[in-house]
């Protein structure tokens, strides 16, 4: 059924090639990049929203 659906789409043969090339370039590149980052750096980065340097978090604290 899936094959029939795909066959009825015009120029479908090229889609795979285009998709795979771009997948490797963009996702692959970003994946490699992200995977090679150090854990300590990632930990620091992900905690940035939680440390805003405010001198006294006032009434807001009681909400959290």
């Amino acid at each position, binding site marked *: 059924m899936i094959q029939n659906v795909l066959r009825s789409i*015009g120029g479908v043969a090229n889609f795979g090639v285009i998709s795979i090339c771009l997948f490797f370039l963009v996702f692959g*590149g970003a994946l490699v*990049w*992200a995977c090679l980052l150090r854990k300590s750096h990632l*930990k620091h980065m*992900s905690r940035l929203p939680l440390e805003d*340097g*405010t*001198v006294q978090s006032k009434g807001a604290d009681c909400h959290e």
Partner: protein
Amino acid sequence: MKVETFKYDNRIVRAFSIATIVWGIVGMCAGLLAAVQLFWPDANLNLAYTTFGRLRPLHTNAVIFAFVGNGMFAGIYYSLQRLCKARMLSDKLSWINFWGWNGIIVAAALTLPLGLTTSKEYAELEWPIDVAIALVWVAFTVNLLGTIIKRRERHMYVAIWFYIATAVTVAVLHIVNSLAIPAGLFKSYSIYAGVQDALVQWWYGHNAVAFFLTTPYLGLMYYYLPKAAGRPVFSYRLSIIHFWALIFLYIWAGPHHLLFTALPDWAQSLGMVFSIMLVAPSWGGMLNGLLTLRGAWDKVREDPMLKFMVVAVTAYGMATLEGPMLSIKNVNALSHYTDWTIAHVHTGALGWNGFLTFSMLYWLFPRLYNTRLWSNKLANYHFWIGLLGMMFYVVPMYWSGITQGLMWKEFTEEGFLQYPNFLETVLQLVPMYALRAVGGLLYISGVFLMAYNLFKTAKSGQFVPDVEAQAAPFRGQEEKASSGLHHWHRWLESKAVLFTILSVVAILIGGLVEIVPLYLIKENVPTISSVRPYTPLEVLGRDIYIREGCVGCHSQMIRPFRSETERYGEYSKAGEYLYDHPFLWGSKRTGPDLHRQGGKYPDAWHYNHMEDPRTTSPGSVMPRYPWLLTQELDTSSLPSRIRALRKVGVPYPDGFEDAEAMQDLEAQAAQVVANLKEGLIEAQPDREIIALIAYLQRLGTDIKGAVTNAPAATAQAQLNLGGNQP
């Protein structure tokens, strides 16, 4: 290490937050009034200014640019300062941003009901307002980048990446799509025509969704969700992949709005492929958001802010799965032009943007006023009434969209259309339209509850205009030695300007690949020798069609399906739109397609139909346009309109506008009046209805008996499209 003390500016955040609530109510009420008119046309109050065609762009502009726009600025101005550990670059620029942006919204609220519109969806505002938008956006971008450059935090958190991508991409999109030649203070003609205009518009339209409604809100999600949950984002690695993959892929997907149209096949295919690939980064982002709450779901039960956030992120996931599915040609063949699209965009608008904005406002107000939320109970009521409203909105619209699509394509056993009268399909949907309005009413009721709750919260606390903070200066921070790719990453994310340039490159690749070939390769827009420019009377008639927002309900693009050629006539060819500045293909058929309307009915039918559609089409939900019968046709601007059209490429002879154009107009008007007389209607030749009839009777008539000068490749592509008839 030396530590600096500084203050975060809360005033600008409060101003944008209040504007968000006010414009949210205005925009949603405009939407509700428009929705009611779809089952009760007289709800237009018998006024041109509040009729559906003019109200719809007011609603879309108000909710996108006023509600979400102000919400986005509120969220960014609060989070950016704290993520950068710095006050905004310039308070003055912040306030130019606030007053400029809200002044633009007031200008939009005045001009759109007056019918001053370009008709290009989500880019309806006329050129002076477009110029103002560009200037205000520059002020915002300078303020944003300046704050990032002078920051004290060495690293740029991922939310800031999303903010940068938003600022630069919206600027590029807005400028390219708005290029037009003025024909007066509030009238202009797009420099692009037909297919090219359609591609540029939907490259813009799609990416307005991507870079105005999505990327800034993803930035907000990455900031406010960890804040509310009290824990860092689930995977920072995933957020990096999410960002680069999303901004690179999104920009290519625009042509999925033009599947099966006269757009070249290769551009359609490209749009479809990239749309499907978009599922991956979108779902990566959604899962990253939801998984941030792992181990904190008990908080979701207690905190209404988190409830709104969870539904927002889930709606983002649903909408970003559905969007790519709708981009598959076979699905799009059924869904396009129907209410399915309306359901899809409202899953995103009500769920993702609406709920995330509410969540953020519930979080911000207690902090801005140094107090607690006045009533958690009321916020919970808001959550449930909003969720119920959303369901009452989208479910009837899905039902309506699929019903509509199937009825349009239904054939009898003998091979005739089962529902040849378009009106039959409309009448079937009227109960769904009524239910949708109930959903809208519930949703707005929730917003009123929020406004009251936040007002009481503000009253119970004390506004904190400046919040004191401390941090070491950027240059004082020591950077640990690093090597390889990791080193490059840290280096790149510390260079705000370079990062911005790379983001621009990523978004420009897709845009250029699609748009440039359409200009450079002649074969892409085949010409048809018999297609001629509009006559002066037709130009004015077309401008009335644009002014009244007819394109909001009527397409002018017959797709190459048997179900459409049987109903409307010959399918539309790219070469027929050579002189269409702007294109008027439309994106929704509440009424039938009009591309082959010319010569279908006598002039008198159109006259009666515009006066009261119910006299010619009993049960029709189209508004009445009695003012067209009485308002005098403004011909004083004809010369400037002809001149502007010549500048954008319509081959009117030099000097045509001096006298010949007026003579031509009067002769054609006299002919229309004579035709009306045959239908026992006495009409004056200088009324607007005469010009509109002339335009409607011209539609799609150029190619009757014409030979298409289409190159072999394009002809083959058109044959291919024909072969896909469902």
